[in-house]
């Protein structure tokens, strides 16, 4: 089989390859990506802390995968549609999904998926069943094609998702119909407790694209410059009507699968220590610092500013009262079936009865 392309410009030690794209020589774009990656990591840490103190529900952190999400968020156009999986807060924040919305969702409130920003209003909500979202992205892309719009659907998934039929069916139809869609695999090496090597016998996940007749390639997912560059190419191809691309981004899930998981049960400390040496934020900071574009003072200012923003977002989130009980029955159907109206009345009657009897309903 032919060797698939693999792209890396920024090595783990912060060295930039000589063939790196021209834009990576400039300070501003790299600083912007760096700031966003740090913000994402701090946001993640904040949510994990909220979960540990019982103020939010189960959460899936993106620790270690910030470069992929930030690249997606920085490269998509506002009019494109993002179809995420559940470890995508980095890209979602950049699409305009607010911190409160993300906090609301993981905090058990449907309003967290009611994105208000114009750039995110057509984006799909976080997808929990694995790989099903890949087909939604193909449907969105089909709509673009039918209407002759030069927009792209971008969808993400983990390495485990590539074992599911939905993923393969999505690649297949995207190839058959040459849809304007970009598939991004966050290959973080672990599907909860199942390592990549026993997930699939193929040497790469990118080669699954070949069976569908579409280009597939690997990227160092901890190199934000490489991910941006290859995404640019894939997005351009799709926008020009030249069809879909599959990008396998190689990274590592530094955190637990979710806050309900304990990864020490199934993987070694040594493996995780090794992975920390490869992580995406330090290498970019090393590059920027080496160029004199970053220093401790700026780092502290960035962290202080981010912590303030996070704190304010948490305060706004915690000030939002739960929805009224009757909200349970809203948005099940656009127009209310009589049966649902009766069931709502039954619930409200129960609450009224309990209120008069002084019994708390929760």
């Amino acid at each position, binding site marked *: 089989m032919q060797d698939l392309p693999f792209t890396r410009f920024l090595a783990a030690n912060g060295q930039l390859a000589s063939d790196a794209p021209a834009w990576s020589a400039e300070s501003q774009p790299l600083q912007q990506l760096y700031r966003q990656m740090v913000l994402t990591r701090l946001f993640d840490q904040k949510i994990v802390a909220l979960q540990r103190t019982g103020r939010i529900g189960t959460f899936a952190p993106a620790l270690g995968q910030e470069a992929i999400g930030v690249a997606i968020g920085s490269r998509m156009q506002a009019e494109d549609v993002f179809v995420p999986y559940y470890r995508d807060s980095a890209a979602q924040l950049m699409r305009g999904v607010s911190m409160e919305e993300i906090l609301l969702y993981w905090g058990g409130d449907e309003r967290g*998926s009611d994105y208000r920003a114009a750039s995110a209003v057509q984006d799909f909500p976080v997808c929990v069943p694995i790989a*099903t979202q890949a*087909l939604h992205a193909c449907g969105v892309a089909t709509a673009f094609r039918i209407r002759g719009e030069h927009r792209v659907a971008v969808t993400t998934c983990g390495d485990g998702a590539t074992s599911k*039929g939905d993923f393969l069916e*999505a690649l297949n139809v995207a190839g058959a119909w040459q849809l304007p869609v970009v598939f991004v695999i966050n290959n973080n090496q672990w599907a909860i407790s199942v390592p990549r090597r026993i997930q699939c016998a193929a040497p790469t996940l990118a080669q699954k694209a070949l069976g569908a007749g579409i280009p597939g390639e690997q990227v160092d997912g901890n190199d934000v410059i490489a991910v941006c560059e290859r995404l640019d190419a894939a997005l351009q191809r799709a926008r020009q009507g030249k069809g879909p691309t599959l990008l396998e981004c190689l990274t590592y899930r530094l955190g637990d699968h979710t806050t309900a998981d304990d990864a020490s049960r199934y993987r070694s400390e040594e493996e995780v220590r090794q992975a920390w040496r490869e992580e995406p934020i330090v290498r970019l900071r090393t590059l920027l610092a080496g160029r004199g574009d970053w220093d401790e003072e700026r780092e502290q200012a960035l962290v202080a500013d981010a912590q303030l923003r996070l704190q304010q977002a948490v305060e706004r989130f915690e000030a939002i009262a739960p929805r009224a009980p009757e909200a349970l029955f809203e948005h099940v159907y656009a127009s209310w079936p009589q049966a649902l109206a009766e069931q709502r009345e039954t619930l409200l009657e129960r609450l009224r009865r309990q209120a008069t009897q002084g019994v708390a309903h929760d």
Partner: protein
Amino acid sequence: MTERSYSLLEAVNLALHRAMHDDPNVVLLGEDIGVNGGVFRATLGLREAFGLKRVMDTPLAENMIAGLSIGMAAQGLRPVMEIQFLGFIYAAMEQLVSHASRLRNRTCGRLSCPLVVRAPMGAGIRAPEHHSESVEALFAHIPGLRVVVPSSPARAYGLLLGAIDDPDPVIFLEPTRLYRMNPQPLIDDGRRLPLDSCFTLREGSDLTLISWGGALVETLQAAERLAERGIAAEVIDLASIKPLDLQTLEASARKTGRVVIVQEAPVSGGIAADICAALYERVWFELQAPIMRVCAPDIPPPLYRLEPLYMPEVGEILAACERVLDFG
């Protein structure tokens, strides 16, 4: 406007033509629906009339068809997806149950899923294995879905237009054994029928017969036989499986006090059980007899040599009616 006779199958085709003509957002997708016009020919002529972009022959993957339809629907299109036979729909269940049914709810209405799943249902056409299922109850159990079963050309036309117009996902199940039976005059006037109402096919005051889909054939025959004996049966076509039009069912049960429900599907966990329970809750004191169900036994639809034993049968319906009439 000219009036001519249409079979149920032709009425489906007519409604699709009308919907695609009236709304450029309506698109069709499925297996063999384009140049072949569908294995039953329900989509005949649509590709020629509306082009390849709006009538899409898909790769052969039911789950993919459903997932794609969800993406298109979220973008404001009105996909009408065909599953070639209801017995092949199980591959698409995750997409329909976990996504189509709840996209509106989980986004608080920001996104919605106005798609229609068309699938031929039911036994009685001597088809191969996995081509004779009646699994409407699987979908009726899912909040956020509507389930509709037409049983005449006129209702197929009006209900399909209503389903395509509806802002939520509708499972539209077409009884194969009615496809070519009893053509009736139909005016292509674009009139929608409501998706939450029963149709009273025959009025009567002695007992109520409730059925839907193909089983209405035997149910109406039983009513005719009862009429010959001077017994007036009210026959209700449920049509809307989810949500149930309980008001109409309740009013009829109150009037007659005697109810028989005829269901082609196996008895356990079926719609007939649901109707029974709802009526007992509402009209217990006005009932003159226990409600009887005539259903298939809890067995897979058999291959066709013994298929008649599986189907609802007039004598069996009459026997249930007699038990209900003789009671008290």
